[in-house]
Structures are given as C-alpha cells and as structure tokens.
C-alpha cells in the first residue's frame, strides 16, 4: 500500500510542526485525560478551558502571539487554584464552576472586541491555528505539555489512589489539597498547550475524548494511557492529512483543529459501537439478569 498520501504533506515544515504539535498534545492528553476521566472532572475541565480564554486574549492584546502562552498560563493557574478550592466545598460547586466559566469567557470576548480585526482574532483564539504554529510556539507547547505530564507522572500513585478511594487516601495519611491542586494545574497546562493549536473551544475534546475511548477498550490501567495517546495521535495525523488534501485538491480550507476533533469523535462513536456489540455478544447471559433485576 502506498502511504505517500498520508506522509507526503509532512515534507512541508509547517505541516511537520503541526504533526509534532498534535503528537505532543496526544501524549499529554493520554496522561492527564486519564485522571480527568477517572475522577469525573469533565465539568471542572470545561471551567478551566473557558477560564484560560481571557488569559489568551489579554496576552494577545499585550504582545501578540508571543503573549498567548504567558497570559494563558497565568489565567490557567489562577483558575486552577480557585476551582480546586471551590470544588472542595462540594455543595454548589457546579454553580460556581458555571459562573467562572461564563464570566471569564465573556470577559475574554469583551477584551478581544477592542481589537480592530476582532473577528479574525476571535476565530484564531477559539479555533486555533495548528498550521501556523511557529517554531518558538512549538517549543512552548512541548515544554508546557511536558510539565503537565510531569506533574501527573511524578504524583501518579497519589492521583491513582485519590481517584479510586478518597477516604482511604486520606486515611493513609495523604493530604488531598496538594494532590488536587497539582492535578488541576496539570489540566490547566494541557489546556494552555492545546489552546494554541486546537483553539480554546476544541481543546476540551482533547482532554476528554481520548481517555473515554481508552476506557471503552480496556479495564487495565497500564493500557489506558497508550490507547488514549494512540487515539489522539491517530486523529491528529488523519485530521492534518485530510485538511491538507482538501485544501490542495478541493480548494477548501477546513479548520484542521475541527477536523481533528471530528475524527476523534468519530473514533469514539466507532469504539462505542464496537463496545456495545462486543458486550452484547460476549456476555449476553450475564448481563441480562442484571438488567432485569437491577432496576
């Protein structure tokens, strides 16, 4: 089989930078996304994604694309601290997250609307520009993504124990606050790294979908990170290839970020379908009495 269709686009430097970007993000999302999934932190992640937006905007207004990363990092860490404290209170935390989410997002829009070419800036921030990632941006993404992975990797056992059994975790003498804070910062870092490539809206898919795919495929923790990483990397690669060929041969200019996310979602749908089929075929007799008796 001739693979040149899938490999040729990457002879262009902007395409190979885009590919490295999505591969870095795939690894980071495999590691960080796993614990978002295990701890059901999807909504907090959504809050963090939107809280990073005004940071991106302020950074951009101050010093253009070079300001995106520092602005986003500052906003992300502040939001991670606030959301950690708020979510520990339990009651009403969903409302608080929703307030942070809507408030910071609208703040970002207000600030960006002061810019003269407001619409194109907004589009860039919301939907990203994986094809326009510069070499210095790529290095930033690699460093920030690696930091997110390190934060989780170095505290892997704590994250695992806390996700499984919070009261057992505390009874072993661990304190939850540092572990939660570090993890929410890791999410924020991944959001920052991903926002530059996929945009602030689509990065959420990267946080959640690869891990969800992995959970459908395996019940072994050791497999989940590789599966999620491969799912994200595959989607990234196919998305870039599709985007390249549609624009070269068909003259269309689909946002590569959106294509990556659509392929990721399609992969999830296929995996879900396969999961349903397999679980019906393999364990029909075991599942049926549970279904009728459990309700």
């Amino acid at each position, binding site marked *: 089989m001739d693979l040149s269709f899938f490999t040729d686009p990457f002879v262009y430097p902007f395409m190979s930078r885009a590919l490295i970007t999505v591969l870095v993000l795939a690894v980071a999302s495999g590691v960080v996304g796993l614990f978002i999934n*295990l701890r059901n932190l999807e909504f907090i992640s959504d809050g963090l994604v939107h809280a990073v937006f005004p940071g991106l905007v302020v950074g951009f207004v101050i010093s253009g694309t070079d300001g995106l990363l520092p602005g986003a990092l500052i906003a992300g860490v502040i939001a991670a601290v606030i959301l950690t404290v708020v979510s520990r209170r339990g009651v009403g935390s969903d409302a608080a997250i929703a307030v942070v989410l809507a408030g910071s997002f609208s703040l970002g829009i207000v600030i960006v609307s002061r810019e003269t070419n407001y619409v194109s800036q907004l589009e860039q921030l919301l939907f990203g520009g994986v094809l326009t990632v510069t070499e210095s941006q790529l290095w930033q993404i690699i460093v920030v993504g690696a930091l997110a992975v390190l934060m989780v990797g*170095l*505290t892997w*056992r*704590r994250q*695992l*124990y806390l*996700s*499984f*059994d*919070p*009261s*057992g975790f*505390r*009874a*072993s*003498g*661990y304190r939850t606050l540092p572990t939660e804070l570090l993890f929410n910062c890791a999410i924020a870092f991944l959001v920052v790294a991903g926002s530059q490539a996929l945009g602030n809206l689509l990065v959420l898919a990267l946080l959640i979908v690869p891990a969800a795919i992995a*959970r459908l495929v*395996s*019940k*072994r*923790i050791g497999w*989940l990170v590789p599966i999620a990483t491969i799912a994200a990397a595959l989607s990234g690669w196919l998305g870039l290839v599709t985007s390249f060929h549609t624009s070269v041969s068909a003259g269309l200019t689909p946002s590569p970020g959106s294509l990556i996310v659509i392929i990721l979602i399609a992969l999830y749908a296929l995996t879900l379908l396969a999961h349903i089929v397999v679980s019906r075929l393999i364990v029909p007799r075991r599942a049926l009495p549970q279904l009728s008796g459990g309700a």
Partner: protein
Amino acid sequence: MSTASAAIELKNASFSYGGAPQLSDVTVTIKKGDAVALIGPNGSGKSTFLKGVLGLVDLAGGHLSVLGGSPRDALSRVGYLSQLTEVDREFPVSLRQVVMMGRYRSLGLMRWPSRRDKKLVADALDKVGLTEQAEKPFGELSGGQQQRGLLARALTVEPQLLLLDEPFNGLDQANRTALLQTLNMLRTEGVTIVTSTHDLQLARDVCNRVMLLNHTLIAYGPVEETLRISLVEKTFEHSIAHVGNHAVVPAAHEHDHDHDHE
C-alpha cells in the same frame, strides 16, 4: 497520660466537622487486642468516631491518643477499611493493584515495590482468601470480594489497629463467613479491631466489646452485658424490635441491602 496497654484512649473527647460536634464527651479506653463493635443509629457518630481516630475529623475538645501518640503519628500502624460505597467500583485496576495501594505511603513517589512490598501484598491477599482473584480487574469482582480486597489493602500496613466502617454491608453469606474468618484470625494475631456495624450478630461473632453510640457514649463493655435491651433501646431511642432476649436494630436506611440480615 496514656497507658502502654491502651490502643485508643479518649477523655471527654468531642469531634466536629466544623459546626456543632457530631460526637461529644466520649471517655473510653480500648485496650490492645480488644475487638470493639460500634453500634448506634444512622448518623449517631460511628463513622465520626473512626475518622476521629484516624485524625480526619478535628478533635473539638478533650483528649485523644491512638497507639500511645497523636492520630497522625499512629497512622502508619493503623489499617482502615473504607465503606464500599466510597470507592469507585469500576476502577480500571486489578485487585493486586488495589491492595498495593496500601503500600503507596511507604513507597513514596518513585520507589519501585520491593520484594517485601510484594510479599506483604501477597500475604494480605492470602489472608482474605483472594489469591486466585489477584489479577482480575477490580470491577469484575463481586461486592463481597471487593470488600475483602479493601480489607487486604488495609492489612498491607501490618496494622496494630484495624478500623472498619460497616464491613458487612451488602455481603452474601459466603463472603460474610470469609470476612469473619479473617477478622477472627487477625484477633488471634493480637490486632486491635474497631468496627462500626448495625449487625448485632457481628458483634457477637467477632467482638469482645461493644460501644453504644448516639452522639455521645451510651455504654461500653463486654458484649452480652452491653447489648442488654434497655441499653440498646436507649441508644436507638425505642425504634428497635425484640426477638426473644435479643434486640434487633433497624438496618441502615441508606443502604437497601436486605440480605445482610438473616
């Protein structure tokens, strides 16, 4: 003020989550090697007592010593069995990985499990009778096996004191028997056991002491002497049934397991 023979010593102790004390004015000494059943209605402070001994609930007044020191100092020698309702039962790890979590605290961030860690895990699995299930995903075990797995995790710290929160909730007869055997074996090894329960039969089968709680200490003493109907009635504020000479306490309402009372 603590004596060498005391596992847990409380003097006028009160515990609070920040507001009004959940449990107040408790004075009791649990001796090393004792097995104590904590009995009381829902919300009477049984879990608070256990969490207080772990140092997870603040001491709002009085004095508490655990294994001769503060709760935090004692933690490395204390095993705790969480309620099954508090853990993620579909968590994608094997039973052996769950049990190894008990070693995480001494493993720290990076150290790889040593031969000794692995042996402690294997021994703990053996003690609860789940060696053959060790590599199975935790989510594929029955509720009773999961509960015994969590007990194995608590045993990996080689506890001198074992705290259990409603360990028999929702267990079928086979798992109940297996868990009883493990607890009796631990008793013969000299482990001090404190378990909350609404199952008076458990108190008779494993424990030599009963503590009746209802926001404060109602009574503490030998099993039959303490499980007198008058005292149990006082603890449950008359909401109990009588079966012969035995009092039957109402089942916990939040857990609708009707098969753990025969």
